[in-house]
């Protein structure tokens, strides 16, 4: 588990990120867009986590005998970001419900047409 | 009360009084007689104040507000401003009488708003006359543009809306697009916005090219001077009721434009700097072309107010021409044009309004034989035409005289030709109007008099008479103007 492994990790993570972004752009369904957005955010979370991880190292508090630790700060930061992500998803879903109620569709094109028609 | 009044510095009154009047009319909505009586009283008091400044010593300059060192709002009185301010102030009460008669005779709507905007416009014009620096000048300039917009669009029909759009579009665009940048650059180069005798930019060391560009930016940026090709707003503004065309678009607004041109030439650049660098040569030809082309347009126009509007454009170009000739005689002629053309052109517009009110005719071709029904109106028209053309006994004769002397002085013989050509054109488009009125058809055996009401007739006779009086009484005005550095020798 050396440098190439972490490089691969970043590459996979990048793939996840771009997949999410693609879904956001390409999908017409509002819920699917949200899922893509979540994927995009998760990719960033994973990126943060991998930043702090050192492969021989472990948690700083648990293993007092170890001299190499994983950096705890990114983990703590990403806890906040995960909360933000959940909140965003919740608000987004709530808005989708409102769109369905008011414009009668969760497909973006149809909803937009309906909005323009009124 | 009088203690309160005396705390207001005298220089502020010409701006403050009309502005307060406008506010009062908007807020209190007085009855028509009260309103017009009040406007007349304020106008007369204002005119008296201005005339008193000709006799006594000028009041001291006044600093209103300082934004930062070198940038302030200030008022000061110098001979050129005194001339322009007095012309506007004297003609205002006369026009008030005319407007009262006109608005009632034609039963126009929204008269309250009309008189309020009128007073507000006058306040703007007086602020321009009194401006002590470029910034104050610009404030007054924009104020005047905006305050006259409701007047131009007064009728609120499609024509008025279109006219208003062109009016505001041209004037705001030129002032924001050229005049303001020119002022910013001037202030940056000179470090101050104050008007300086002999020229603010005299020691600035700008190159000839830079000076030419800056001068052009000013000349075209001052859209109110209606130098071609930024003249389109003036014919468009003719959709306004005639008193507006008369006082604002023959006197206050357009004279504000040429006044600013002269003021910039004399106090910002200084004739000496401009003639040394030859910066005005190109613009001399633009002004000449504007002068002749507008005359041709006027000659071709059949609508009476349109013809007068193009005539105004042509006459304004005389002042721009004078500013570009840069010799003392020409500048004096340009300054006198502010006075002479104001009285002449307001008379012509008054006549046009009187003809419209009494006979509902607007086209020149419809006027045949009308002179016998309205002899006073057509007589006044003839007298004022003489003044505009530059024939004695009209005050305009002196303008042509000094301009011709100036162009010889400057060695610009071609300009002399331009002046001659334009005089011919003036005759061709102005004199046929009274001639048609009297002689196009044989005099009918029995004539019924059908003059406009006295409120319209009296002002136009007065202004026509005054434009003859000025021919004989111009001495004190010239003496005062000669005090300006660059105009006096």
């Amino acid at each position: 588990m050396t440098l190439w492994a972490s490089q691969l990790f970043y590459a996979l993570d990048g793939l996840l990120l771009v997949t999410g972004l693609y879904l956001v752009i390409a999908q017409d369904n509002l819920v699917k867009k949200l899922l893509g957005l979540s994927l995009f955010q998760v990719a960033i979370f994973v990126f943060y986590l991998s930043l702090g991880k050192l492969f021989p190292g472990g948690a700083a508090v648990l293993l007092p005998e170890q001299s190499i630790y994983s950096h705890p700060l990114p983990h703590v930061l990403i806890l906040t970001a995960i909360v933000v992500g959940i909140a965003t998803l919740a608000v987004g879903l709530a808005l989708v419900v409102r769109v369905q109620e008011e414009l009668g569709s969760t497909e973006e094109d149809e909803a937009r047409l309906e909005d323009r028609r009124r | 009360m009088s203690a309160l009044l005396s705390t207001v510095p005298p220089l502020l009154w010409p701006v403050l009084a009309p502005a307060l009047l406008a506010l009062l009319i908007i807020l209190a909505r007085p009855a028509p007689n009260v309103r017009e009586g009040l406007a007349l009283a304020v106008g007369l008091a204002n005119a008296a104040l201005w005339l008193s400044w000709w006799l006594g010593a000028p009041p001291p300059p006044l600093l209103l507000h300082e934004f930062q060192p070198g940038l302030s709002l200030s008022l000061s009185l110098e001979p050129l401003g005194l001339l322009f301010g007095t012309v506007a102030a004297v003609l205002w009460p006369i026009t008030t009488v005319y407007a009262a008669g006109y608005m009632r005779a034609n039963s126009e709507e929204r008269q309250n708003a009309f008189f309020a905007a009128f007073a507000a416009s006058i306040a703007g014009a007086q602020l321009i006359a009194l401006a002590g620096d470029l910034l104050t000048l610009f404030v007054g300039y924009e104020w005047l543009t905006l305050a006259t917009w409701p007047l131009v669009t007064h009728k609120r029909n499609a024509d008025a809306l279109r006219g208003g759009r062109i009016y505001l579009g041209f004037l705001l665009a030129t002032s924001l697009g050229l005049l303001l940048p020119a002022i910013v650059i001037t202030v940056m180069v000179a470090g101050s916005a104050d008007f300086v005798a002999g020229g603010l930019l005299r020691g600035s060391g700008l190159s000839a090219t830079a000076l030419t560009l800056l001068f052009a930016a000013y000349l075209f940026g001052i859209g109110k001077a209606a130098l071609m090709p930024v003249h389109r707003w003036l014919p468009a503004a003719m959709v306004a009721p005639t008193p507006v065309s008369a006082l604002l678009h023959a006197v206050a607004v357009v004279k504000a434009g040429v006044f600013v041109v002269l003021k910039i030439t004399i106090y910002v650049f200084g004739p000496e700097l401009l003639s040394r660098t030859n910066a005005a040569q190109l613009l001399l030809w633009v002004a000449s072309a504007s002068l002749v082309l507008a005359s041709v347009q006027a000659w071709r126009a059949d609508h009476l107010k349109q013809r007068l509007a193009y005539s105004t454009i042509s006459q304004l170009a005389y002042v721009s021409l004078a500013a570009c000739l840069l010799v003392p005689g020409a500048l004096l002629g340009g300054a006198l044009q502010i006075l002479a053309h104001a009285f002449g052109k307001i008379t012509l517009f008054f006549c046009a309004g009187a003809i419209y009110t009494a006979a509902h005719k607007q086209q020149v071709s419809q006027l045949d034989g009308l002179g016998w029904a309205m002899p006073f109106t057509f007589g006044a028209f003839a007298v004022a035409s003489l003044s505009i053309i530059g024939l004695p006994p009209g005050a305009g004769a002196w303008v042509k005289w000094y301009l011709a002397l100036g162009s010889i002085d400057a060695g610009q013989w071609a300009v002399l030709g331009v002046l001659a050509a334009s005089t011919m054109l003036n005759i061709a488009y102005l004199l046929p109007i009274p001639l048609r009125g009297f002689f196009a058809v044989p005099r009918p055996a029995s004539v019924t008099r059908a003059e406009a009401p006295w409120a319209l007739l009296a002002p136009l006779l007065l202004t026509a008479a005054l434009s003859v009086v000025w021919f004989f009484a111009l001495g004190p005005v010239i003496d005062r103007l000669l005090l300006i550095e660059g105009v006096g020798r």
Partner: protein
Amino acid sequence: MSEILLIAPVLLPLLIAPLVVMLGSQRAGWLLAVLAALVATLASAALLPALGEGPRSYHFGNWPPPFGIEYVLDGLNTPLLLLTNASALLALIAATPATLAGRFAGREPVFYALFLLCLSGLSGILATGDAFNVFVFLEISSLCTYGLVAAGPRPGSALAAFQYLILGTLGGSFVLLGVGFWLQATGTLNMADLAQRLPQSEYGEVALAGSVLLLLGFALKSASFPLQQWLPAVYAAAPWPVTAFLAACATKVAIYAMVRLALDVAALGEAARWLFGLIALVGIVWGALAACVQRDLRRMLAWSSVSQLGYILFAFSLGTAAGVTAAMIQFFSHGAIKGGLFLALGPARSFDDLAGLREREPWRCAMLTLLTMGLLGVPLTAGFAAKWALLSAAAQAGHGIGLGVVIFSSLLAVVYCLRLLEPVWLRAPQRDAPQLPRHAMLLPPALATLAMFALGLTPWAASFGRPAAQALGWAP
């Protein structure tokens, strides 16, 4: 005491927001929210007098700066804190329960709580000296904005809010990613610390990539060209007090973040300033052109905002003290004018709604006219002061293209301002616009109008130029 003052503008709305919900009463909730905004405004005003003494910082939990979270108030962000809080105050005064007109069926307190949280988030972005904290506050304010926009009266409001949520979250995620890159390159999140370490970092490319991502994120939030498309939709969809609030300060806070992170912390210098200048100038023209052809009143003003925000970015891109002064004046000038315009327009959405306003509501007509004059840059208004400062700064820096673009856009402003004035003054009323309680209609725009003239006549906003330039290191 003064320590508390540093964090009061951020903490107060944050703490009051839950209280507003718990109170449960519409009227009491509104009063409490207004009160909170008022105190926060006063607190940020109280920070101004000591502006000349250099930056002041507050350490949370007494942790020394590189380790704990730090708030730093200096010449650049303190004035903006006041702008943000004051705009929130005016918008909240206008947003009475009666104004909201039953959109919420008894849940108005939630609206006020969202409003306060949004305010707290914006203030937080301004005040914090910690890069990750910027992200957190950005998301707080954004999440609340989505809710506020969705509260708009149109059926499409929720859709507009959703689309904004997608874009906003993408922007926020870019910011998060950028902060991560910076963390990787330097191992720190404190801005002052970052400013020292970024230039020396051995991972220069990582640091640069982080800067680019951060810029991208905030360019989106600030509606800088070419990422401005969401702005008109959001302004058109939101309830009008919210539109006024967002127009007065939200995008400006994002511009602040761009300038702070790119020019101060990352010190990208010439390259970033060139980029800022480019997107600003294109945006100025594009926004003004688009404003001229809009059919919807609010969209027109929104596009005008795109143009006017470009002025700010362009002023910063000059990289001179005079440019910063122009930017500070434009921050306040545009805040007062555009915020005031939306407040004065109230629920009016189309040009037809304005027809005959002169007869119907003369006072509102007067304020609209004056504020439009300000937008035009007529002398004595703040708009003129801003334009004057900007033209001088551009001329001083020898930026001829910028000078031309600013002038050209002010000509286009004549066109769109005229489109606003014409129905107000000249057209006969066609149908009645919804009536509103008088005080809510008149007081906030009147205050904004007064502020506009005060800004135009005094050098107050210009006096922030020097401290702000010092904060950026562009003035001694």
